[in-house]
């Protein structure tokens, strides 16, 4: 906890100062936060990031869950398939970003050349203002392997005898899924949901390596904006204020998710609530 709390407090103090690297820090109270409210790029970055999160999190969860269910069947070559589906997650962020820059390239990229061969209309992908964020969503969902692996591990914990009980009561596949698998998986679904939201709100690599926030600020993700403020414009005070706004925002969302979870997450121990 020391590794976390110390730096957190330091950044809170920074956020109350007008501190630009090279000049002495000056205490200015809440002025940074005031400035945020009137900063169109702040609102833009918040919008872009929220849009991205709303797209990526549900899609990743759904893809991960469905594939985990499929791969948990007694299909032959299961190890092989699992590895295939997990492969994208193994590629280091820098390498996968470089790889996708090519895939998205409108002229010699993989996607447009496939579309052309199929006689379909092509897209400008990350180079178009409207298509940039959906393109990055596509790339992120490609890496649903982590969610899938967690779901797979979770599926192993579902007690087998309950399936037998459903079968005795005359329930079919759907009843088994609905009354046994799904309730037992809710803690794991919840985990993937919370960490997915926390993670996607902090997306940075793609914006940094692939688009630099462009075109026309279409991929001005929150952390990327924060990063440019801190390390390009050297405005540490303002960047710290940005960080704290994001922190409070994610905190509120997480608390809301935990509260809401009481209604649908099923635990073996009632005391855990």
């Amino acid at each position, binding site marked *: 906890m020391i590794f976390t709390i110390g730096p957190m407090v330091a950044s809170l103090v920074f956020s109350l100062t007008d501190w630009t690297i090279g000049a002495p820090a000056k205490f200015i109270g809440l002025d940074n936060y005031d400035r945020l409210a009137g900063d169109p790029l702040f609102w833009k970055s918040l919008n872009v990031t929220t849009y991205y999160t709303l797209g990526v999190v549900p899609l990743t969860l759904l893809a991960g869950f469905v594939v985990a269910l499929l791969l948990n069947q007694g299909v032959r070559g299961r190890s092989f398939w699992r590895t295939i589906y997990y492969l994208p997650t193994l*590629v280091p*962020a820098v390498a996968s970003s470089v790889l996708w820059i090519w895939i998205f390239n409108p002229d010699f990229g993989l996607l447009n050349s496939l579309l052309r061969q199929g006689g379909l209309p092509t897209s400008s992908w990350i180079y178009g203002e409207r298509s940039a964020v959906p393109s990055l969503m596509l790339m992120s969902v490609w890496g649903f392997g982590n969610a899938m692996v967690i779901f797979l*591990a979770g599926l192993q914990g579902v007690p087998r005898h309950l399936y037998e009980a459903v079968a005795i009561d005359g329930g079919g596949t759907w009843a088994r899924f609905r009354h046994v698998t799904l309730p037992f998986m809710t803690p794991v679904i919840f985990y993937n949901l919370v960490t997915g939201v926390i993670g996607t709100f902090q997306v940075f690599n793609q914006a940094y390596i692939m688009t630099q926030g462009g075109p026309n600020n279409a991929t001005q993700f929150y952390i990327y904006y924060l990063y440019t403020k801190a390390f390009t414009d050297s405005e540490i005070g303002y960047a710290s204020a940005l960080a704290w706004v994001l922190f409070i925002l994610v905190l509120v969302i997480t608390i809301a998710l935990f509260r809401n979870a009481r209604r649908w997450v099923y635990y*073996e*121990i009632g005391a855990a609530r």
Partner: protein
Amino acid sequence: MALWIVLGLGGAVMILPFVWLVRSALMTDNQIFISPPEWLPEPFAWSNFTGAMSSRPFARYFLNTMIIEVLVVTGTVLTCSLAAFSFSRLRWRGRNLVFGLLLTGVMLPYAVTLIPTFVMWGSLGALDTFVPLTLPAWFAGAGGGVFNIFLFRQFFLTIPYELDEAAYIDGATPWKVFWSVIMPLSKPVIVVVVIFTFIGVWNDFLGPLLYLTDDSKFTLALGLAGFQSTYTAQWGFLMAASLVVILPITLIFFALQRYFVEGVTLTGVKG
């Protein structure tokens, strides 16, 4: 059969970018940028691999990475599972409050805590050693480790509490319950944490970049990135090196994932 077709189609989509990586790794730079793109290298540019591997001491980087891996993976699994055990199966005052506080720690963008953390390690004289990269793992992961505690906790919460009670009635201590009841039933999640932690360290770029300066202490990821800045124009080299770095973890994942199959049957527990 239908399942096979679905998996095959999905798998093809998943692997396509990877195939793209492989074919690029085997092409000369001239061929990579041809439009419309070609799928087969002509000729196969194996020299990308030999060139990439001999340009840097990758064996040394591999050894450094493995030292950090062993220390971090062991520390993370032991301390995070223990913390999660405390958060899910022991009752104490303020338990949920402390857990909540821990979770908030990962919500502050890491870019912000970067500088203060760096200054802290500097004042402790730990720069250019493996200490900043390995020691936090022995304190329940610190920072990102919170996700592991959360993951363990969510799994522990699905294990029937009757098992603990039965063990306590037999005179077991909490330690005994942790080691002999909970951990053996948690193999799938332990494997997940091992895999995630292993890959995290393997691909971690920022940590080694900040703390290591001496080339003989570099990790694979750092070597790969340095590679990228040295050979910005040589895409084939970069793709070949990336492939060499990805291959070992792919094999490790392939070997580890079979432990998911050893499911928990929980016989003898009647809900």
